């Protein structure tokens, strides 16, 4: 089963194991090959194994051991898959600064990264610049990313709700929830005023103020969360449309 020169599992080499999608076995076999005869391409294949297994951090860690091969595209892709969009963008920028010509894969990755970073305008520009390469027409680009599409700023949503309760939810795209939040808080303020008017100063101050404070801060935090959720929904839809149009 184990030979000194090459590592075999069930009679298969590392590459055969990889091709048959036995990725854990293939990863160990590639490491054994590297141990016996160090080579960057062996490590790259090992990284592919972990990418296939969804262990992107481990795949990235393996890439750091590669000295000779240019693996910046692979790093950018793995950072993207690991949802570290800023690092992915940095790797893509480095490639661009080094004058690397972006092929179809790199352009698609760049667009995906820009969408994930909520840079819809930049993503549209990248699609327009590479429309021919990707085989897209202007209506296709409009279908993928609406020209008026704008990301919601979660902090802005929170601040809006702090100024006027309910408006942050409205800004986040949830008018009904904003109306409900605003109504509840208006009701609590009315209760507090009525309590003072009828001489219930302790009830007005302590119950009214406490309830208002709770709903006021809670509503603002909820508006922030809603804005993030809306952004996630929009970006997911954009990515799905991109994959429909770019096979």
């Amino acid at each position, binding site marked *: 089963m184990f030979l*000194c020169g090459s590592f075999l599992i069930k009679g298969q080499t590392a590459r055969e194991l990889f091709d048959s999608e036995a990725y854990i076995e293939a990863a160990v076999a590639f*490491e054994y090959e590297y*141990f016996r005869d160090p080579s960057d391409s062996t490590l790259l294949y090992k990284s592919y194994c972990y990418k296939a297994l969804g262990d992107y951090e481990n795949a990235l860690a393996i890439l750091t051991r590669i000295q000779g091969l240019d693996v910046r595209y692979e790093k950018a892709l793995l950072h993207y898959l690991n949802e570290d969009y800023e690092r992915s963008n940095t790797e893509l920028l480095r490639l661009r600064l080094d004058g690397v010509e972006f092929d179809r894969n790199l352009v698609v990755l760049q667009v995906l990264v820009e969408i994930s970073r909520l840079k819809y305008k930049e993503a549209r520009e990248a699609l327009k610049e590479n429309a021919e390469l990707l085989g897209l027409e202007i209506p296709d680009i409009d279908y993928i990313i609406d020209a008026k599409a704008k990301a919601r700023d979660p902090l802005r949503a929170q601040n809006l709700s702090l100024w006027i309760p309910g408006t942050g939810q409205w800004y986040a795209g949830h008018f009904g929830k904003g109306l409900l939040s605003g109504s509840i808080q208006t009701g609590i303020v009315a209760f507090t005023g009525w309590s003072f008017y009828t*001489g219930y100063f*302790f009830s007005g101050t302590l119950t009214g103020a406490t309830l208002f404070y709770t709903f006021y801060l809670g509503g603002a935090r909820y508006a922030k969360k809603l804005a993030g959720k809306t952004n996630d929904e929009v970006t997911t839809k954009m990515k799905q449309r991109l994959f429909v149009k770019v096979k």
Partner: protein
Amino acid sequence: MITRSKITGSPIHLNISLFLFLIIPALSHGQLFQTHYQFAEHLRSLKAYDEGLFYLNRLSPEALTIDQKDTLNYLTGKFYYYKQDQTYSIRAFDQVGISSPFYRESWLLANYQRFYLGNYLAGKEGLGKYTTGDDPLTVQLKNFQLAGVALLERDTEKFEVLRSDFKDDYRELIPSQEKLIEIAESIENFNSKSPFVAALFSAVIPGSGRIYNGRLGEGLISMLAHTIFALQSIEGYQKDGPGSARFLIYSSILSGFYIANVWGSALSVKIRMDEFNDQTDHTTLLTMHVPLRFLFD
């Protein structure tokens, strides 16, 4: 068997590696097992423990000599130890034979992990099984581990007996020994409170039971909350009378809050005790681990 009169700064595993390179080829029937060992060490240096276990689990023990099986079990135990999978690590370490150069390390790490899992009795029995001589370092390490477990069991009298055997021959052990003594003092000095007294305090002055338990902030917040509900109850009583909905609602909330606070004050004593015990156990286990890591990593 590896013996050293004193720790002089070079970890023991260097000697074990030397042993493997020199002796294993003679013990095995060729270079193959040495390659397995070197590759396993390579994976360990990469912290690729899952890969290491995958590799080792595919070696056929039937084809190995007794010494090679011991080495295989040691490596398996070590990979599981790094993965913090104590149960499998103990199982593998326990299979390392007494004649193996890895026996002492396996024996100590297996029993330390038993203590870590809370199996104090099994760990103490396991420590008692070592019968391969009485080299001073092993005796000191065993005594140190037993002293640590005495603290885990809160048996300070037994700790005092074992502590009297602490020696300063091994400078790497001294800080850990001192730390155990410090932990023993903190156990003896811990001022435990009575849950009954805490509840009584809170029954007389709401929140004071928590202050008695050393939780000033919690006590003050509790007092403030009681005051808020009391003021609203009084306002409802004075303006609308004892049968009014306003008075009944606020006084009911106040009553519920009061009862919960009395119960909570008693409970807070138990929580404080649990926190102290958890912290003490954690620090003790960490202290017991330090010399093992130093010697065997």
